[in-house]
């Protein structure tokens, strides 16, 4: 029974649960708890999948006198489990290597063409009319980049809000969370892993950085900065494919501005989501551990 239950859990946590969670907009009002919940759902999916495989192996191979059929099942289950682990590791390696290479190249070029801000080397200004602001995350060599085009359309307090937002990303290492979810998404075929998790997590880290920026610069300044920069970019977006559901494009931006309007802390909701996050992780763990404990009993 245990392997089947774990397999069902793995499928649920990989597909339907993220799909439902992504359709509950109120979850985003407690971004920290929501992010924790997303991470624990993802971890639970992996845990349950590996647990299902291992449970199948021990179930068939640890009998008194395993017959050939039981052995075959055990070996296949072990093979599949190892394959899943290998895919995860390979995907994490690929994603990590490629991100580091892109960032290194970008930083090398940025550093020679840009000017440092007055406050030191981390903030860089580039001579370009397209209004953009972004950061380059990573160990050693984080940068916050603002184009002259962006400086031109932002007032000083709006620019402060943008810089605070980017600093929050770098400080909290949001890139690591996104990297993990990217690796997870790319490890499995489309029909197993949905885009919902990565998309939602992307939005949540933006909401988190927005909240930090609001504390430092005020929500009006941040809201105006978001709209100013989005407006400056609109002509290009019209040419390219309009990504409406994304964290940084149209739909996500609107969600972010709407969330700015509603900054009330929601302690009960946060506590409930955190408890749910713990439960989600405990469930598959219990399914794996309990049968082993009972098997150990004399």
């Amino acid at each position, binding site marked *: 029974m245990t392997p089947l239950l774990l397999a069902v859990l793995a499928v649920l946590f990989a597909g339907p649960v993220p799909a439902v969670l992504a359709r509950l907009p109120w979850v985003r009002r407690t971004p920290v708890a929501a992010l924790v919940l997303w991470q624990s759902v993802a971890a639970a999916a992996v845990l349950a999948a590996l647990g299902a495989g291992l449970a199948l192996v021990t179930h068939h191979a640890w009998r008194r006198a395993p017959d050939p059929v039981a052995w075959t099942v055990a070996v296949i289950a072990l093979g599949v489990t190892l394959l899943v682990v290998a895919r995860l590791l390979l995907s994490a390696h690929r994603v990590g290597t490629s991100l580091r290479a892109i960032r290194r190249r970008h930083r090398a070029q940025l550093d020679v063409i840009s000017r440092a801000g007055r406050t030191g080397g981390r903030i860089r200004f580039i001579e370009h009319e397209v209004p953009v602001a972004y950061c380059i995350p990573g160990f050693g060599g984080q940068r916050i980049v603002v184009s002259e085009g962006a400086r031109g359309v932002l007032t000083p307090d709006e620019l402060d809000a943008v810089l605070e937002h980017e600093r929050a990303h770098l400080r909290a290492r949001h890139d690591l969370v996104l990297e993990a979810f990217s690796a997870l998404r790319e490890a499995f075929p489309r029909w197993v892993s949905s885009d919902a998790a990565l998309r939602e997590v992307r939005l949540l880290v933006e909401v988190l950085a927005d909240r930090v920026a609001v504390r430092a610069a005020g929500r009006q300044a941040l809201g105006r900065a*978001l709209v100013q920069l989005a407006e400056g970019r609109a002509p290009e977006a019209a040419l390219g494919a309009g990504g409406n559901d994304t964290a940084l494009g*149209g739909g996500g931006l609107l969600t972010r501005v709407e969330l700015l309007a509603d900054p009330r802390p929601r302690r009960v909701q946060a506590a409930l989501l955190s408890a749910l996050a713990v439960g989600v992780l405990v469930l598959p763990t219990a399914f794996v551990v309990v049968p082993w404990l009972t098997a150990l009993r004399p």
Partner: protein
Amino acid sequence: MAKTRGNIGDLERSVMEALWAIPDGASLTVREVHAQLAEERDIAYTTVMTVMDRLARKELVHQERDGRAYRYRARGTRGEMTADLMRDTLEEFASHDRRTALAAFVSDASAEDVEALRAALAKLDGA
């Protein structure tokens, strides 16, 4: 003030500026760049050589052999290299479904999106 130990980033920028200052298609040797930099700071020839070698490995300058020395030229003008970087950046922002190397403040928004944003912002200002 003679800078004896400027940071490597400043040095890279100074070398690039020397290379950007020469006419299109021309190139400089390490000796020539060193001569220019040495007017403003106390700097060893070998340091300049190391920096220029690093820039070549990062593909920011082209290195070509000329007899016994190497000649260097920038990959493009400053404006071209800035435009290149910006194109890469915007492409990176547009690839929503992939892994993201850079974290944009905002990405694409259509004209309708901006309308909706303005309306939401108006509510925010009124609140």
